[in-house]
């Protein structure tokens, strides 16, 4: 079983990338599970054809965690991809990080974490220990950073590198960086910039996803690009990403940059 996690700045396209990656992997006949680890709970929506599935924490809130069964929190979407949304408290109260930890413990207890590949789609920043959960305890062993060439996006990716570097020092840690996915924001020389960023953090660019209108069109039709436009060039990009991820064995411990290094890198490409 391969467990991978996608991290990156909020709004950068983690969920779109995750869902298309899961769909492309499922097309190969693999048993796939995708877990959205974000209180916004919109990670799996395209795989579920627009349905908002009940989140794990919705169920916990309504009935407590004792009587919950796997079929109340795991839902089959496109090509049998098993979809889970962790969910979270109402914005502004409680502790969403603890919610992620509780979700993992519940899924563990329900024996629901299985399949050929589990894809964890995690919210923007690793703001606390809870949101580092997918990187901990041997869950996701490969982390992929999703970023564009924008400075703030690189900054977020760099911060996540700090979390990976820190957690990888722990004795039981198995997580490492699998690579960087550039989700284009149509910036000049963006691919070269992100490639250089990846090199400097001791990693590599594993996929360049161009900006394509088909992504929005598929989304309006409540489907992944893989499902809505399987013949499109964009679907080909996601399939290639799926192939790269499956074959990837080059894991590294990232070397995060300091702020000056990051800014001077961005300056080189202005």
């Amino acid at each position, binding site marked *: 079983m391969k467990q991978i996690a996608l991290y990156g700045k909020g709004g950068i396209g983690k969920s779109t990338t995750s869902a298309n990656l899961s769909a492309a992997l499922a097309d190969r006949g693999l048993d796939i599970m995708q877990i959205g680890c974000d209180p916004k709970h919109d990670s799996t929506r395209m795989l579920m054809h627009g349905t908002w599935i009940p989140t794990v924490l919705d169920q916990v*809130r309504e009935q407590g965690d004792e009587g919950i069964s796997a079929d109340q929190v795991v839902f089959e979407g496109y090509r049998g991809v098993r979809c889970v949304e962790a969910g979270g408290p109402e914005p502004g109260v409680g502790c969403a990080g603890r919610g992620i930890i509780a979700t993992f413990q519940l899924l563990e207890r329900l024996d629901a974490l299985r399949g050929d590949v589990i894809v964890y789609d995690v919210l923007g920043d690793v703001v606390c220990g809870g949101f580092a959960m997918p990187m901990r305890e041997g869950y996701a062993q490969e982390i992929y950073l999703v970023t564009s060439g924008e400075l703030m996006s690189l900054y977020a990716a760099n911060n996540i590198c700090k979390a990976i570097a820190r957690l990888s020092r722990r004795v039981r840690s198995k997580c490492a960086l699998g690579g960087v996915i550039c989700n284009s924001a149509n910036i000049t020389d963006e691919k070269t910039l992100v490639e250089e960023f990846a090199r400097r953090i001791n990693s590599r660019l594993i996929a360049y996803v161009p900006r394509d209108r088909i992504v929005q069109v598929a989304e309006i039709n409540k489907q992944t690009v893989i499902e809505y436009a399987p013949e499109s060039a964009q679907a080909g990009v996601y399939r290639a990403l799926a192939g790269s991820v499956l074959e990837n064995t080059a894991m590294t411990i990232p070397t995060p940059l300091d702020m000056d290094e990051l800014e001077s890198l961005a300056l080189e490409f202005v």
Partner: protein
Amino acid sequence: MNSNPSPLNLSRYEGCTITGALAVSAFIPDALTVVHGPAGCAHHNLSLLHATLLQHDRLPLPRVYATSLGEKDIIFGGEEALERTIERVLQRNPRAVCVISTCITETIGDDTDAVCGREWGVPVIHLHSAGFLGGSFNEGFVNALKGIGTLVSPAEAHDGSINIVGEKNLEFEVEENYEEVARLLGLLDLEVNVRFVRNTRVDDISRFSEGSLNILREGALDPIGRHFHEQFGQPYLSGFPVGLQGTRAFLQAIGDACGIKANEAIAAEKALQEEVAADFADLRGEVISLSPFGFQCPEFFLLSEVAGAIGVRIAPEGTEIPVPFGTPVGTAGIRRMLHQWRRFLHA
């Protein structure tokens, strides 16, 4: 390890902040206390309180409630659990409710102030008690006194009476110490207004502002002394009287603060102290050594002062006598300590 070994404030700079807050709130007979946190926070602290009170043969035991937060409350926020518990507690018709917050509720950002600030019909007071913010027993104790201070209504004028602030409700000699201070005040024809807070009812607490002077139980409460000085314009004295000379100085300080001549009271007290020394004349010439119990401070000035006054010499070869667990208050406290010395010397 006791980081602050002075017998004056033994272990108050350690421990759980909730214990400090409870050591105040549990001593308002017509108020009820809610610990907003996991059941264990309430249980552990209440057990400690119960054990101490039972050891001192003091009953009845105070009633304390807990919101008993579980993981669900932590993830989704504990404010609803607090509201439910306050509603439940109000069915017992308390005159006030004290809500003690805990580490976890402050960590997840529960707005305890907002819940307490709702219109409940009686005052519901938030006593800040998140120990991880650097607090200790003393922090909880001080925060609780500050919180209870919100029950006080401003007075138009001070009436010349004296407030006693921050009595150590968990110390064995709490009543004896109070009586000693009240006796000393009596020498100056002064009366106690409010014991803030020891078995004091909510209505009585509200009269706190009428007092002209606040006597703090100990120096660790100076922040509270300043707080009430700012709020109600009351001067304060930090600490109950300690030592022979200290007790006479205490009378002088009160006299100064209240604009009363203390000469006669001081002379009367000096005569009493000479009488005490005479009562223990049988100890003259004895040699003692002071055993610190491992954590007490044998260099405490009171011990050498008293030894000097009755003609007892302190030397390593002397009979081993424990440093008193609680600091003797006033002349009466010294008399009790000397009885203990006599028991050890004549054992």
